[in-house]
Each structure stands twice: as C-alpha cells, then as structure tokens.
C-alpha cells in the first residue's frame, strides 16, 4: 500500500529536479488554479495559458520555496498575479485589436454567446434559464476590480481563510475583510433577483 506523499515531500523532490513529483503537484492543484483564473478572466484559452504559465513559473522558483506557507497559497499568488497582469494587458490593448466591444455590455454579450451553447439533452427552458443566470453571474463578477475578484474567488470557490488570502494578495487581513465585504455586497446587489 502506498502512502500519499505530502505537498512538502513533492516540493522537495521537485526542487531537486524530479519532474514526476512536480507533475503530481500540478495534477493536485491544476483544477483549483484554473477555477480561480477562469473566474478572473472568463476566457478559457487565456485561463489555460495563465494556468500553464503559473506552473512553469512555480517550477522555476521551487528550489527557493521554504515551506513556510502552503504550496497552494504560493501557487495561487503566482496565478492571481499573472491573471491580474493578463487582465491589465487586455485592458491596455487598443479596442481595434481586441474582441471587446464597448464597455461591459460587449463582455456580457460575449458571455451570453458562449454559455448559450447548452447541452441539448436537457430541458431547453431550464437550460436557457441556467445559461442566463450564469451570464448574469459572470457579468456581475466582471464588474469587480481584479483585487476584489481575486479575494471573492479565493474565498468562495477555494475556501481560503482570511490569513491565507492575505498571504496570496500580500495585504492585511483587514484589507481582505473589507474587499470581501465590498465584493459580496456588490454581487448581492447585482444578483438580487436570484438570491
């Protein structure tokens, strides 16, 4: 019977160049990292790219990871920073080069187009309702700033504690609490007919 290796065991092995150990870490956390990045970017290809870049960057620095924090909070920090960078680059891009149309309405339309492609096996009425709801949720997230997005996603999707979020975001616990409060209020207001 094999005993599951801890993250720290794997980190040490990966630090010594063991690619299989690193692969195990990637497989352990890729879905969670992808979920957070997806929540921030709402673009599958971009989310995949940022997730890949996150793990490449993690491997490059893993030899210096001292284990004074969880591996996953460390990886989240890389991912969140890369996602924020990506978002800023997108925002800076001239509109002519971008797929964005104008303001948030364009984004919402994109989201509606994307998630309107439903599984035909289900009830079409329910499927449409669901897709509309998801579009509204994504549009509501989109209205948050990158920092507010990151905090709410780390809390609500990943269940990170305030302390862990403060390490990921490099801010105080008080800042985490106030961002969380603001983000929740805003989401509640935007989604009030569904909650």
């Amino acid at each position, binding site marked *: 019977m094999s005993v599951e290796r801890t993250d720290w065991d794997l980190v040490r092995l990966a630090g010594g*160049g063991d*690619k299989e150990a*690193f*692969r195990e870490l*990637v*497989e352990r956390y*890729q*879905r969670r990292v*992808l*979920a957070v990045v*997806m*929540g921030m970017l709402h673009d*599958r290809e971009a*989310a*995949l790219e940022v*997730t*890949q870049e996150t*793990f*490449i*960057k*993690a*491997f*490059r*620095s893993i*030899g*210096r*990871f001292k284990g*004074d*924090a969880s591996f996953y909070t*460390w990886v989240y*920090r890389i991912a969140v*920073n*890369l996602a*924020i*960078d990506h978002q*800023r680059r997108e925002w800076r891009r001239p509109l002519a080069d971008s797929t964005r149309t104008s303001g948030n309405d364009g984004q919402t339309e994109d989201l509606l187009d994307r998630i309107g492609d439903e599984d035909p096996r289900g009830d079409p009425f329910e499927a449409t309702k669901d897709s509309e*709801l*998801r579009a509204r*949720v*994504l549009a509501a*997230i989109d209205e948050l700033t990158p*920092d507010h997005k990151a905090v*709410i*996603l780390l809390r*609500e*999707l990943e269940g990170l*504690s*305030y302390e862990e979020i*403060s*390490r990921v975001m*490099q*801010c*105080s*616990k008080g*800042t985490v*609490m106030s961002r969380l409060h603001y983000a*929740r209020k805003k*989401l509640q207001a935007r989604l009030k007919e*569904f*909650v």
Partner: protein
Amino acid sequence: MNCREAERLIETFYDGELDGRSMRDAAMHITRCKRCEAELAQRERVQELLSRTIEHEIADIDLSRIWAAVEPTLEDAGSRSSGLRVAAASSRVGGLLLGRARSGDGQDESFDPASWDAPPSHARGLWRWTVAGGVALAASVLLAVTLVPQLGETPQGGVRVASEKTDLGSSATTEVARVSSPGTGSASRGAPVPEAFEVARASVGRAVRPASNKQVQVESVNFPRSAVSMWSEPASDTTVIWIDDEEQAAGRR
C-alpha cells in the same frame, strides 16, 4: 446578542473566522432570528451561484493540456532558474529607482515567486514606502549638493558609501558631497553637529528587508583631519553620516 451585533459579525461568522465564544453567540442568534437567517442564506446563495458558474465554465476543459504545455519547458526552466532570479531582482531594482508605476493596491506587476518568504501583509508595503522615502531623500541630498556652489561654498570632499551589507547581499551606492547645514545634523541625536551629511539609503533587491545588524561600508572619505561618525537606523532604512570638519570647527571657535 441582538440583530445589530449579529449583523456586524455575520460575515466573519459565515466565513468561520470568529472565535469560539462569538461563534456560539452568533449561531444562537441566527437560528432564532428570521432576518439574520435570511441574510446568511443570501450569502450562501451567492457562494453557490459563483461555484456553480465557474465549475460549469471549466467543466469541459481538458486538464491534460496543462501538463502537456508545462512539461516541455521544465528542462529549460530548471537550468535557467538562477539566472532568471538575478534578472528578476535587477528588474525590481530598476523599477524601484526609476519609479515604475505600480498598481493601485500595491500588487507587483511581475511577482517573483522566489520572494515568497518576504514578510507577509502590510509590512512589506511599509518597507516599500520607506525605501521610496529613502530614495526621495537621497534625491533631495543630491539636489542640495548641486545647489551648494550657488551658495558660495565649493564642495571640498566627499564620502562614498560603497555598499550596505544585508542578509540578502543587496547593495546600493549613494554618493554625497559636502552640504552646508551649520549648527545641526538632520537627525536629532546627540549634540549639535557642525557639518551634517545625511545619506538616505535605498536598500534594494529581493524583498527589501534589512538585516538587523546593518553595516555600511565607506569606500573613501576625502576630508582630511575630519572625524566621521555614523548612525544607522534599520527601522527607517536611513543612515546618517556626520563629518566633523575640525578645521572649520576650529575656525568657528
């Protein structure tokens, strides 16, 4: 506990971040109060909507694509890692000195994962401000240096601070020349100082965390018959150097 108190705690209660006693009190109130219970239910619903939506978004993504893209880069990444770290540190120094714009909330535009062991939370932000202040102070010293000739006093010498040893091996060099500030040193320490030189130091490099036993190496002192005294305060990342020019002091006497 009443509704007003519960309202204040409901968020931290929901997040499981209250201490034992407050947790129990809040729980007791919420189970008896319809309004607070509804408030809590709203938060649960928002959380559920977020999770469901994002899960749906990633459900059909082929996760094997992640490793497939990461794996070929690892060989290369491993062999280049130390060089990249140096480059990252250099770019951070450049960013610091050139005043590169940072995001509104203090996020690094390019996070160096190797700096993870830096102090968490606001402490790091404070140090950045301190260093920024140090750089600004250094700039003002240099400005003062350029103004000295206009005041009719020609700089006659200089102190070159070669490096500051920290636990991270980072270094910065600041050159100062004579600045006339008769009577007092800018640091309110000790007796009035005839000639004062303030050297604001910027310690640069990874995480900008000074060692507790900071040392400043003076490369050269070009003030014949002068006494040099130095005061370093790691907490404010500032080093003050006094040059007691005996000739001038004797002249004044």
